[in-house]
C-alpha cells in the first residue's frame, strides 16, 4: 500500500481508530445477547408480581420486542449517552449512577496508575543498573512477591496491618474525602502494577544499556544519571508503554474488588451490587462504559507508542 508521505501520523491514527470501532461493537453485542439469553428476569423477586403488572413493566422497558430491534434501540440510545433506567435503583438512570460513581473510581485509579509508573520505572531502572547484585535480587524478589499477591489478598492484609493492628489509617470508606482514606486502597491497587512495570523496565533497560550508543555516551564521559535520563529511558520505556493498556484494564478490574473491600462508593461497587441483583441495565451500562474507556485509552496508548517508536508508523 502506498502511504501518503505527508501524513503518516494521521494515517496511523485513523487506522487504529478503525480497529477500535469493531471491538466496541462486539463488546456491546456480546454483553447484550448474553444478558438476554440468561435464565431469569429482572422482575423475578421473592414477591410474585401480579401478571398484568409484569406485562406492563415488560412493555414499558420494551422487553417483548425482537432481540435485534432491542439491540438496535440500545445502540442508538448509548450513542446519545443514555443507558436507560436502572432496574434496581428505580429513581436513577444508569448514566446518573455512572456519573456518581465514576469520579470516585477515577481518582482512585489515576492515583494508583501514577504511583505504579513512578515507583515501577524507578525500581526497574535501579535494578538494571545493579544487575545481578544484591540490590537487583532484592528488588526483583519483591516484584515477584508483588505479582503473586493479588489485590484482593493484599487489600485485607493492608487493612489488618495498618488499620487493625497499627491503627495508623482508616479501614474503609471515604470519610471526609481526605487523602488519608485513599492511601490503603491506592496502595492495594498500585502494588501489583508496580511489580510488573519494574520487571518490564529492568528487562528492557538492561538491553538498552548494552547497546552501542550507550557505550559511546559512556566513553564520552557522561554521568550515569545523564545517560539514563537523556538517552536510555525513552527507548527502554517502549515495553512499559505497550503494557499500559493491560495495566489500565487491570487497575479498572482491580478497582472492583478494592472498592468492595474498602467500601469506596465508586463505580466498581455499583457493578458488583448490580451483578448480584441482576440489574440488567446497570451491569450492561458499566460493562459498556468501562469497555469503551479501556478501548479509548488503548487507542491513546497506541498513538503514544507510535510517537515514541517511529518505525511503527511506517507499516
Amino acid at each position, binding site marked *: 500500500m502506498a502511504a501518503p508521505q505527508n501524513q503518516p501520523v494521521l494515517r496511523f491514527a485513523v487506522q487504529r481508530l478503525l480497529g477500535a470501532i469493531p*471491538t466496541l461493537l462486539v463488546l456491546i453485542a*456480546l454483553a447484550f445477547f*448474553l444478558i438476554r439469553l440468561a435464565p431469569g428476569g429482572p422482575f423475578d423477586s421473592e414477591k410474585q408480581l401480579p401478571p398484568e403488572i409484569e406485562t406492563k413493566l415488560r412493555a414499558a422497558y420494551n422487553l417483548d420486542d425482537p432481540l435485534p430491534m432491542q439491540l438496535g434501540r440500545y445502540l442508538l440510545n448509548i450513542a446519545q449517552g443514555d443507558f436507560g433506567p436502572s432496574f434496581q435503583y428505580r429513581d436513577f438512570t444508569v448514566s446518573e449512577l455512572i456519573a456518581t460513581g465514576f469520579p470516585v473510581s477515577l481518582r482512585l485509579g489515576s492515583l494508583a496508575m501514577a504511583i505504579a509508573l513512578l515507583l515501577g520505572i524507578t525500581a526497574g531502572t535501579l535494578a538494571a543498573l545493579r544487575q545481578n547484585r544484591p540490590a537487583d535480587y532484592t528488588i526483583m524478589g519483591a516484584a515477584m512477591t508483588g505479582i*503473586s499477591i*493479588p489485590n484482593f489478598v493484599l487489600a485485607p492484609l493492608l487493612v489488618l496491618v495498618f488499620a*487493625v493492628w497499627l491503627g495508623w489509617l482508616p479501614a474503609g470508606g471515604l470519610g471526609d474525602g481526605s487523602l488519608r482514606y485513599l492511601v490503603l486502597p491506592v496502595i492495594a491497587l498500585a502494588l501489583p502494577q508496580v511489580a510488573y512495570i519494574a520487571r518490564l523496565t529492568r528487562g528492557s533497560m538492561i538491553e538498552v544499556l548494552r547497546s552501542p550508543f550507550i557505550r559511546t555516551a559512556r566513553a564520552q564521559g557522561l554521568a550515569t544519571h545523564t545517560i539514563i535520563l537523556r538517552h536510555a529511558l525513552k527507548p527502554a520505556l517502549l515495553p512499559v508503554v505497550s503494557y499500559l493498556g493491560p495495566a489500565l484494564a487491570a487497575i*479498572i*478490574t482491580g478497582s472492583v474488588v478494592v472498592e468492595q473491600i474498602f467500601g469506596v462508593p465508586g463505580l466498581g461497587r455499583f457493578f458488583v451490587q448490580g451483578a448480584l441483583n441482576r440489574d440488567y441495565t446497570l451491569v450492561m451500562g458499566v460493562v459498556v462504559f468501562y*469497555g469503551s474507556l*479501556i478501548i479509548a485509552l488503548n487507542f491513546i496508548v497506541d498513538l503514544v507508542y507510535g510517537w515514541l517508536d517511529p518505525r511503527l508508523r511506517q507499516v
Partner: protein
Amino acid sequence: MNRPAEIVAPPGRSLWSDAWRVLRRNRAAMTALLLLATMTLLVIVGPWLSAFSFDATDWDRISEPPSLASGHWFGTDALGRDLFVRTLYGGRISLLVGAVATAVSLLIGISYGAIAGYVGGRVDQVMMRIVDILYALPFMFLVILLMVLFGRNIVLIFFAIGAINWLDMARIVRGQAMSLRSKEYVEAARAGGVRTGRIIFRHIVPNLLGVVIVYATLTVPQVILVESFLSFLGLGVQEPMTSWGALVNEGAQELENAPWMLLFPATWLALTLFCFNFVGDGLRDALDPRDRQG
C-alpha cells in the same frame, strides 16, 4: 549427503535434556517446583488423612485460634469448621480449576494459533483480526456477567475461564507455526501429499511444545487468580464447597476477630502463585533457545 558409515554421530542433545539441565541448575525454580509438588500432594491426600471434615462444625471450638493441642492447626472459622482441612479442600478446587481451565485454554489456543499460522494468508488475517478484537475486551467483566447470568456452577467456571484465556496462547503459537511452516520436514510432508490437518497436528504442534509448556505454566496462576477473584466476590464456588478465593473473602470479613482465617488461605494462595511464576520463569530460561549459551 552420502556420509561414510563409520563416522559416529555425537551424542544427541535434545531440547528436553538441555532444558532439564538448565532448569536443574536454577535453584529458585527447583525449590518452587518441589514446593508445588508437596502442596499438590498435601491438597490431594490431606483431607482424607485429617480427623476433621471440611464442612462439619466443631460446636465447642468456634472461631478458635490455631493450636496444636486441639488438633485445629490453622484454627477454626466462625462456623467451627477446621480451617486446615478447609484450606486443603479449597486448594483442591483452586488447583483443579487451574488445571482444567488451562487445559481448555491450551486446546483452543493451540488449535486456533496453529491453524492460523500454518494456513496463513487471508484465513490468518481474519483469524488474527478476531483475536485482536477479543483482546481488547474487558474479560473479567464478561466472566462476571457469565457467572451472574448462568448460575454459579463449577463446570461453567472451568470453561468460562479457560475460554477467555486462550488469546495469548493463540498469538504465541501462531508466530511459531508461521516459522515452522517453511521448515524442510514440513515441506517434505506437504510434497508427500499429507493433508493440511494432519500436518498441523502431527508436524507443527509437537514442535511447539516448548513454548506451550512455558506459557501453560504461566497460565495456571492467572487462571487460579481469576477463579479466586470470582469466589472472593461471591460469584464463584458456593458453600459448603470452597476455594482459596472464597476463604480469603471469609477471612477478610472476620479480620478483627480471627485474623488467622485470612492469613492461612492467603499464604497458600500467594505461595502457589509465587511458585508457578518462578517455575514458569525458570522454564522460559530453560526452553528459550535465544538465551542458550554453549
